[in-house]
């Protein structure tokens, strides 16, 4: 199963590297969101600085939606989904592979966004251990839940509008927990942040298990 996962992840990442959709469209969109936040919240009033952790994670969620939709759009073209079904790969492996590819893309985006907030919002990053662990746990949760709900919406004509409605309420706890953990790191008391990382890890594990078990029957239908 893990070999299958690696094959699918490598395939998705290779497509992304060659098509450069992530680099040319999603990353610039992420930076655009950061700039729009600055327009909406006056940079001189200090609100932007206070709200940075939340804005960072809202931007990650928006980009995550795009990455997940993209992850299933590449399977929709030329009936690739049928090829995937017929390939004999373990469905759990396909799920893990697609989730892993989305996670790696999002982690790269988080690096870009991280530089963005440091440069544009003059944020001082501190508590690196907590920051990195939060990113890893939250991204794993977004990738796993996103891939599960992504395949639910895949194949429907209205998937672009349906996926945000299905996925964002489910990801609300991830937004709360990752924002609180980042705030704890920024305020210099990482002790308050670690319980939130625990919640994120629990979320990621739960959705990874559910997705790996339930993905097969959903892929059949889509």
């Amino acid at each position: 199963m893990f070999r299958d996962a690696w094959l699918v992840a490598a395939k998705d990442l290779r497509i992304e590297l060659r098509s450069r959709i992530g680099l040319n469209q999603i990353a610039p969109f992420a930076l655009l969101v950061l700039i729009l936040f600055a327009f909406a919240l006056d940079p001189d009033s200090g609100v932007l600085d206070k709200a940075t952790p939340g804005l960072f994670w809202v931007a990650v969620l928006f980009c995550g939606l795009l990455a997940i939709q993209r992850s299933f759009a590449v399977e929709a073209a030329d009936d690739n989904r049928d090829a995937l079904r017929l390939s004999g790969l373990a469905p759990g492996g396909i799920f893990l592979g697609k989730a892993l590819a989305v996670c790696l893309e999002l982690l790269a985006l988080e690096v870009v966004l991280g530089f963005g907030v440091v440069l544009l919002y003059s944020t001082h990053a501190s508590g690196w251990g907590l920051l990195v662990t939060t990113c890893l746990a939250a991204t794993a949760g977004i990738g796993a839940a996103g891939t599960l709900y992504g395949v639910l919406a895949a194949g429907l004509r209205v998937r672009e509008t349906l996926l945000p409605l299905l996925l964002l309420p489910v990801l609300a706890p991830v937004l709360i927990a990752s924002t609180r953990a980042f705030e704890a790191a920024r305020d210099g008391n990482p002790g308050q942040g670690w319980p939130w990382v625990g919640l994120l890890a629990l979320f990621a594990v739960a959705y990874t298990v559910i997705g790996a078990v339930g993905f097969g029957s959903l892929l059949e239908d889509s």
Partner: protein
Amino acid sequence: MTSTDAPAGTGSTGTRVLGLVTLAALALGAYLALVASPPDENMGDAVRLLYLHVPIVTMAYVGCGLCTLGSALYLWKRSEWWDVTAAVSAELALVFTALTLVTGMIWGKPTWGTYWVWDPRLTSTAMLGLLLLGYAAIRRMPSEPVVRARRTAIVGLLLVPNVYIVNRSVTWWRSLHQGTTIGLQPKIHDLMFFTLMFDLLVGALVFTWLLIHRWRLAWLEHELELNELDDAIAARRAEAGAHPGVPPTPPRIGVPTTEPTT
């Protein structure tokens, strides 16, 4: 266009009796809540809204529980009965959640001075409503009945766990900012307690009555969906039979037409 053995309505003797009992109980419940029970020491007459609000929110939770239970049993037994049960429970849960928010906000205005506070309970109820809207949206997507049933069953199965996770995280989030949540007064008058219990029973009656009717309607829709093609073919054949000069038109779905190609 309908099956010959389809009933004309969703009522039966049982539901009519249940309906009458529910109506009588509603009248008695309203009398107890609005007239017989005393006003609260702190909340005054605003407490009377809670006799409506608490049964509604309880039934919203019952609906969510039924939806998840029905979804799990559908995935296990693959029975359409459970699929329909899960779908109609979620629909009722959505209606009751919306009513919970409306009655809660009306109660909040005189009690807290504002319609909305970022209280864990309010926030997670709003998130519950959004999760149910997502379920309703995917339920309404046109697709094969079996495909739709399986997709919605996964969303329904995750409904209660998601509500739980959202509720825990929101509670935890707010507990960092404010002390305690505003709740019911622990000391409660005997008649007030009886009124609340009685109105909970009334809420359960209303919910059951609605559930039975909605379930029967959904089942009829389900049968119509299954028989639609057969009925359409039968109608076309009957139409052709009524005009003997015209050869019967073959059904077009999945069957090659006999029209000459040029």
